[in-house]
């Protein structure tokens, strides 16, 4: 279980997060929602151990994140940034193999096992056929999937090892519709087939409604609401957090909530 307990954070004098407590249980899928600038990405970085909270602490299965050795943590917890830009022509396989970093010594070359894992993860993300392509020639959706494969390749494959956590920052923000659906399907599948705990932050309410079973809704660095998706995603909370009047109803085909923003509160 990944848990942030009363964490606060500031960039210099500028407070970004104040006393946030969220948690996601093993195999769960937590969505972190909020308007731009509400602190979603900062919370994700705190959960990933990329930032150190000023107050409070983040723990994985009850152990403080900063008590982990870097490599040990990386083998259990991986992050996929919003966009992955490379400046050189690495192949797709090269990128996937970068996930094996925490498993190798400084002078070690990847062995057959590492290669096998990288390829399985490319397979799992539907990008195996791109193996020798330069990463920079891929479409946005393909890049995102390869980035996820690279993150997945970080995990210990030992079945007895404790669960792993995948943190996704705005996974669909810059993608077209088809690619968005692909990524959503991929995340859902990973969760089921690979016993992976997922935290994703997004400003896409429908994506969150579609995928997440729990939500944390941030507003200006504070936790506005948290809980099961259908408890959090209500007309009132959306109006309170986004200042938008929205229609929330259950979609018949997917049996999921959908949110249709109608008008801003000022114009109402």
């Amino acid at each position, binding site marked *: 279980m990944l848990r942030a307990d009363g964490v606060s954070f500031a960039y*210099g004098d500028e407070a970004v997060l104040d006393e946030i407590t969220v948690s996601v249980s093993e195999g769960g899928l937590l969505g972190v929602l909020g308007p731009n600038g509400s602190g979603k990405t900062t919370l994700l*970085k705190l959960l*990933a151990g*990329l930032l150190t909270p000023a107050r409070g602490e983040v723990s994985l299965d009850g152990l403080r994140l900063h008590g982990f050795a*870097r*490599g040990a*943590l*990386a*083998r259990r*917890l*991986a*992050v996929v*940034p919003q966009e*992955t*830009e*490379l*400046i*050189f*022509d*690495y*192949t797709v*396989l*090269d*990128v996937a193999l*970068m*996930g094996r*970093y*925490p498993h*190798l010594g*400084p*002078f070690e*070359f*990847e*062995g*057959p096992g*590492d*290669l096998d894992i990288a*390829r399985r993860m490319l397979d799992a993300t539907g990008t195996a056929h791109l*193996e*020798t*392509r*330069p990463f*920079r*020639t891929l479409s946005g959706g393909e890049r995102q999937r390869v980035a996820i494969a690279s*993150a997945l390749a*970080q995990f210990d494959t030992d079945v007895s090892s404790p669960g792993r956590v995948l943190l996704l920052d705005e996974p669909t923000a810059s993608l077209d519709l088809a690619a968005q659906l692909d990524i959503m399907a991929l995340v859902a599948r990973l969760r089921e087939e690979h016993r992976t705990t997922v935290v994703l932050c997004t400003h896409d309410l429908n994506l969150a409604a579609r995928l997440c079973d729990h939500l944390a809704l941030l507003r200006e660095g504070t936790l506005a609401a948290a809980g099961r998706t259908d408890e959090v995603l209500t007309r009132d909370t959306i109006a309170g957090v986004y200042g938008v009047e929205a229609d929330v109803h259950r979609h018949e085909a997917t049996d999921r909530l959908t949110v249709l923003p109608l008008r801003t509160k000022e114009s109402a």
Partner: protein
Amino acid sequence: MPSQAGLLPVVARATAGARRRRAWAVQVGFLLMAVLAVLCAPLVGPTAISLRQVFDPTVAFADNVDAQIFFIARLPRTLAGALVGGALAAAGVVLQALLRNPLATPFTLGVSAGASLGAMLVITLGVPLTLAGVPAVPVASFVGALAAVGVVYGLATMRRQGLSTNVLLLAGVTLNSLFSAIILFVQYLADFAQSFQAIRWVMGNLDVSSYQPLLWALPMLLVAAAAFARLPRALNVLTLGADSAAARGIDVLRTQRLAFISASLATGAAVALGGPIGFIGIIIPHLVRLLVGADHRLVLPASACLGAAFLVLCDTAARTLLSPMELPVGVITAMLGGPFFLWLLVTRGGGPR
């Protein structure tokens, strides 16, 4: 669409063994190229010398012109060329990855301007000839180089914890301009002959005519090389960005610091030895990536070897083409490097494709 990155083929579904063999082949190939260049260059020159005469034990070295041409005029400068070329190319690779900027060079962070200012001050102020047995110009240029990167590093780490590569880049560029202005000012105050000497220093010269300068540079280059050896895998991951690298278990700050210091050390030593010879630190890494792909485990050693071979070649041209006149080697690297780089920019587009 090419199904590979780099001209040397990457085989789809290659096994780990095949990948390892390819890596070895690439490294051995480039190493052979460097060794071949170093072995052949001293045999080439404007004067015809006889190898038998060079190694003739019956003639005293002081009287043996062929031996002196081989062992004093050619061999030290060939070795200097290999060391300087290798160091600059490797430093270029490391800095491009560190700054995540393919246009970075070993001189982007102010090293060459600092070194030039140091050399300039010694040449124009007429500082005593040697400091502790080492000629003052290389010492001053080395100190100038380290002072410049020290300032840049201080600025980049001042604002927040961690190393801001943006500040690093901007501070480097600014410092380059500032130092250039100071150089012009010093030059303005200097005598004509002195400023001419200083300008000539900037064009680079590998004619060390003794082994001493090599021995002074060697320890620093070895330290830098030892640091470089630890870097390639981390540099690969660093090109994903600092957060992605940290999430993969890399101690980003430590890696950046190691990369920055070792690249600066290598560049400073190279500049002290041969002057700020341009273009090697940028064209060689790009050429190597074009050939073998982006993996720094190949790019770094291959660039060092190709940089060594390339500079040895350029320097052989510098001392041979207009004999008995000597051409500034920096002019040759720039004349070969400039067009090549433009070609690269046009055909490869430079950025994401």
